């Protein structure tokens, strides 16, 4: 039997180190632009600066969960372990972004809407449902047992979660009278040039962070799979040795 040993004890590479450095530099630029470059808003004053974290988090929540859905479909169609690993990794990062979206939205809502949360607000509640669905997705992935069956169950939830993304995104248009949330900043909003530029810096930083963390998480999950395979091979070898001794 051939034991598959991990090539190194970390998941870094030249590409990820470059990505990581770009994320750090981008964060510094975002902080400087966000706090000192972009102007305050006439109505919201400094509270508007939350937009530079909130909107990129929301957009990359969508990107991550769409990635999970694509990975899930590829698993269901082709039984591709590579895509299943991508799906799981993207879901974990998407959950982080989604949590950040909910948190920053809530913090932003207090000074602007005059409330942290409203249980009847269609945008807030559908986003929370998305967050919970992805917790459910990751719970199913961690159930253990037969890996193929677990991946299939998780993939179904991954596709279902992505199916509610259009509802979350369009809720502010479809149920205007059920939400405090403003319409889309990017498609309907009117932004100062420097505000828009800083927002795009935010997108770039979040995008780089998404790529960096996706690669690392993918590699960790892949190594975990290999380790399980090694453990299984080792256990089988031990059993064979026991059998030969008898």
């Amino acid at each position: 039997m051939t034991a598959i040993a991990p090539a190194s004890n970390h998941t870094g590479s030249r590409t990820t180190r470059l990505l990581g450095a770009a994320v750090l530099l981008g964060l510094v630029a975002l902080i400087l632009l966000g706090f000192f470059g972009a102007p305050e808003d006439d109505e919201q004053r400094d509270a508007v600066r939350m937009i530079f974290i909130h909107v990129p988090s929301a957009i990359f929540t969508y990107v991550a969960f769409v990635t999970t859905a694509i990975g899930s479909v590829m698993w269901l169609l082709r039984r591709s372990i590579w895509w299943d690993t991508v799906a799981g990794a993207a879901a974990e990062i998407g959950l982080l972004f989604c949590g950040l979206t909910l948190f920053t939205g809530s913090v932003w809502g207090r000074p602007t809407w005059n409330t942290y949360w409203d249980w009847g607000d269609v945008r807030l509640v559908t986003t929370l449902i998305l967050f919970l669905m992805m917790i459910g997705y990751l719970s199913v992935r961690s159930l253990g047992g037969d890996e193929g069956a677990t991946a299939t169950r998780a993939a179904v939830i991954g596709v279902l979660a992505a199916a509610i993304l259009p509802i979350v995104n369009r809720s502010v248009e479809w149920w205007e009278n059920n939400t405090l949330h403003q319409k889309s900043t990017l498609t309907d909003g009117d932004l100062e040039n420097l505000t828009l530029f800083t927002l795009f810096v935010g997108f770039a930083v979040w995008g780089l962070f998404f790529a960096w963390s996706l690669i690392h998480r993918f590699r960790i999950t892949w190594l975990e799979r290999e380790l399980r395979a090694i453990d299984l091979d080792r256990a089988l070898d031990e059993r064979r040795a026991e059998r030969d001794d008898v």
Partner: protein
Amino acid sequence: MTDALTPQAPRSGRTRSRRWVPTAIGATVAVLIVVLVWNLFTGALFFYNADEAIERRSELGDDRFTLQGTPVGCSIVAGVQGSDAVTAFTVAFDGALVDVVHRGEPAELFEGGTPVVLDGQWVNDSAGVDGFEGLADDGWHYASDRMRVKHDEDYINDDEYEERLAEADALAAAGDCTA
């Protein structure tokens, strides 16, 4: 000899009990989603715009409902109703006007021109707040006790914004709400 290669059952209940954690999380999540969807469909936030609220006044009676409208800047007055400190103002939506008396602190971003979402009910009486001359002045007012602001998706920094606010305040102080 194949028996020797058959995987053995877990030696303790630990592995099995560990599977209960994600199962319990999954079940809790499923229940929470059902509760949230139910809550959403019962329409806890659904609000009527000022024109709809006027149209449905008889139907709404003294039920609590949520109202949306844009405060008319020059109508805003901080005053007293009975022994309570209140903020009185008129909200507009699509040409319809509603006089509002709000008990409690107004929202931080409350100002003329920025839409508000209010919880309260119709009262078949004029506002009765000294210094407040409601623009609707139709013998009704909306008694509110919760205010949220529904700001728009524009993020602008207009050099003349402060001047326009100061002008509106000056008009309000002069009791002129026609400009």
